[in-house]
C-alpha cells in the first residue's frame, strides 16, 4: 500500500538528508525503522506526512499506486496517513476534545459525510480513552500543554485510535514511556491492527518490538536504508550497536 521509491529529500538550502530511500509496506504488515540519531528517521516520516519545509528532490512516495507528493498534509491524512510525532506540539487554548472533533469531522467532510453526532463522538472518545487507560479529564485540557512526556505519547496514540488510519507511522512513540505505559500504548496499537492497515514504528529500543512485533526491521543510516531483516536484526542491534553496520557501509 505504501511504496517509497528512491526518495531523496532535504532542506530548502540544498542540504540533502534523505539519499534514496526504498521501502514497500503491504497491508497487514508491521515495519520497524531503526538507526542512529540524525540518520533521517524523523525527516522520512515528516516527508511522508507532507511537511512542506522539506524539499523532495527525487523519487516518489505512493499510496495505493498514487503519488502523494502533490498532496497537502491534510489530504494525506484524509487518505489514511497518520504520523505520531516524536515531539508532539503544545497548543495552548485548543482543547484535546475540540481538536479531535475538528480533526475527525475534517476526515468525514473529506469523505462527503456530515459531522459526527455529539453523543456518538463522546462515546467513541470514552472507548478509546479506556483502551489507553487515560483519564477523561484529558479531553478538556489544552492540547499537550503541560503534558508529561509519556502523556504526550499516549495522547498521540489516542488520536490515532480516534482517526483509525490505514498507515500509521509512530516516531519514537516509546521514548519517554514508563514500562506500564509502554505496554498499554503497544496494546492500543495492536488493537488497531488489521489485515488492511499497516504500521511503521521508528524506535531506538528493541523493547517496544517485543510488544509490537515487526515483520521487517530496517536500518537507516545517513539517509539511506542500509540493511533490512526480520525482528532478529533488532535484537542484534540492541546487542552490538550500529558500529558494525557503519563499518560495513564505510566503503560505499
Amino acid at each position, binding site marked *: 500500500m505504501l511504496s517509497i521509491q528512491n526518495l531523496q529529500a532535504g532542506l530548502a538550502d540544498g542540504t540533502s538528508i534523505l539519499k534514496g530511500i526504498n521501502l514497500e509496506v503491504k497491508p497487514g504488515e508491521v515495519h520497524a525503522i531503526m538507526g542512529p540519531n540524525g540518520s533521517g528517521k524523523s525527516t522520512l516520516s*515528516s516527508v511522508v*506526512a*507532507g*511537511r*512542506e*519545509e522539506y524539499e523532495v528532490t527525487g523519487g516518489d512516495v505512493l499510496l495505493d499506486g498514487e503519488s502523494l507528493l502533490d498532496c*497537502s*498534509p*491534510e489530504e*494525506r*491524512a*484524509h487518505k489514511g496517513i*497518520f*504520523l505520531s*510525532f516524536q515531539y*508532539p*506540539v503544545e*497548543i*495552548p*487554548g*485548543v482543547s484535546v476534545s475540540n*481538536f479531535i472533533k*475538528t*480533526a475527525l469531522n*475534517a*476526515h468525514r467532510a*473529506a469523505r462527503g459525510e456530515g459531522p459526527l453526532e455529539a453523543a456518538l463522538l463522546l462515546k467513541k472518545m470514552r472507548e478509546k480513552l479506556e483502551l489507553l487507560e487515560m483519564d477523561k479529564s484529558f479531553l478538556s485540557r489544552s492540547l499537550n500543554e503541560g503534558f508529561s512526556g509519556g502523556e504526550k505519547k499516549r495522547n498521540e496514540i489516542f*488520536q490515532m485510535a480516534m*482517526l483509525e488510519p490505514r498507515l500509521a507511522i509512530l516516531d519514537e512513540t516509546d521514548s519517554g514511556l514508563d514500562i506500564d505505559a509502554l505496554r498499554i500504548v503497544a496494546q492500543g496499537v495492536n488493537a488497531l491492527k488489521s489485515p488492511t492497515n499497516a504500521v511503521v514504528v521508528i524506535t531506538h529500543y528493541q523493547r517496544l518490538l517485543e510488544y509490537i512485533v515487526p515483520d521487517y526491521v530496517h536500518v537507516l543510516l545517513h539517509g539511506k536504508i542500509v540493511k533490512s531483516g526480520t525482528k532478529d536484526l533488532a535484537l542484534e542491534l540492541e546487542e552490538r550497536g550500529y558500529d558494525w553496520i557503519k563499518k560495513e557501509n564505510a566503503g560505499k
Partner: protein
Amino acid sequence: MHNTLLNLYAEHEADLARESGDAVASKRRAAIDRFEALGFPTKQWESWKYTSLKTTLATEYTTVPPFASASQHALEFKDLESYFLDELDAYRVVFVNGVYSSWLSSTTHQGIDVCTLGSSWRKNPEWLAENFAALDELDEPLVLLNRALAREGALVHVPKNTAADKPIQIFYFTTADEPLFAQVRNIVVVESGARVEIVERHQTLNGKAHWTNAVTEIRVAPNAHVRYTKLQNDLSTATLTDATFVHQAADSTAVVNTFSFGGKLTRNDLRFHLAGSNAEAHLHGLTLINGDEHVDHRTFVDHAVPHCTSREVYKGVYDGRSHGVFNGQIMVRPQAQKTLAFQQNDNLLLNDRAQIDTKPQLEIFADDVKCSHGCTVGQLDTDALFYLRARGIPETEARALLMLAFANDALAQVELPALERKLHALIHKKLGVSVA
C-alpha cells in the same frame, strides 16, 4: 477642515450655550480655543507617532451640525438587524448620521435611564451639565473638538443599588451619501451598588469615507459594576477616533472590551482613573485586521490610590499590510501602595508586510506594588500548523484554530452569550472559516 470646524462652532456657540448652561458653555469655549491653538495632531506628536490622520483629513467632509435634524434615510429595522445581537432582549439607542432615531431605538426611564443626551438637555439639564465633560481630561485635539461641539449621544444612568434589567446596545450608523464627520458623546453613570452591561458599535453602511469622533465618559460609583464592550468591525473606508474615560470609585469593577475587527483607521484612547481603593479595572482588547487597516490602541491606567487592581490583556493578529499600534501606559502614583497591575500585549504578524508598534510604559512611584508587563510579536507557529494539518485539519481552518487559541484570553471578559456568539461569528468570518 480646521477652519470649517471653528466656524461651525462659532455659528452654534450661542445655541449650545443656551441649551447646556454657563458651566458647560465655558468648558466648550475653552476647548475650542485650545483646539484652535493645537490644530490636528501630526506624526511629530509623541501620542500620534505611529498613526497619521493625513488621509483622513484630506477627505472633504460634510460636518454634522450640533442641532442637526433627522436626515432622510430609508433605514428599516430589518436592514440593521444583522448588526444587533441576535435574540438578545436589550435596550437600544440608535443614531443614524449622528442623529437619534427613535424609530430604531428602544429606550427606558423605568428603573434606569437609557436615553439620549439630546433629550436630556431639555429634561434634565442640571444633571447632564454636571456629568458632561466631567471626566474627559485629555488635552488632545479630537477630544477637545468633541467637547466643544458634541451634544448628542447615548445616556445611561443606573441609580443606586439597581441592576439594569437588560443589557444596552448603543449604535451609530452612518449612511450619508457624502463623507460625514460626526461628533458624538456617550455618558454613563452607574451609581453605588448598581450594575450594567453595555455594547457599543459604530458602523458605516456604505463605502464612503465617514469619520466618527466619539467620546465616552463612564463614572463608576462605589461598589458599582460596569461592563462595556466596543465592537469595531467597520468597512475598510471608515475612520473612528474614540476616547473613553472611566472613573472608578472604591470597590467598583469596570471592564472595557475593545474588539477591533475592521475600519480604515481606528484610534482608541482608553483611560482609567482608579480613584477609590479596591477598585478593579479590566482592559481587554482583540485586534484582527488585514488589508490596509490601521488600529491604534492607546491606554492609560492611573493608579491614584492604594489597593487597586488593573488587568490589561491586548492581543492582535495582523494580516495584509495592516498596521497595529499598542501603547499601554500604567501610572502607579506614590500613594498607590499594594497596587496590582498586570499588562500583556501579544501580537501575531501573518506576513512580513503587516506591522505592529508596541510600547508598554510603566511608571511606578510606589514601592510596595506588584506590576508586571510583557509583550510579544511573533508569527503563526509552523510546527503547530503542521501538527494540525497532519491530523487532517485543512490549512485555513488550522490557521483559524491557532489564531482563535491565541486570541482566547482577550475574550475572557465576555459574558453575554449573545455577544459571545456574535464575536465568534465575526472572528470566523474575518479568518475566512465557516462557523463550526
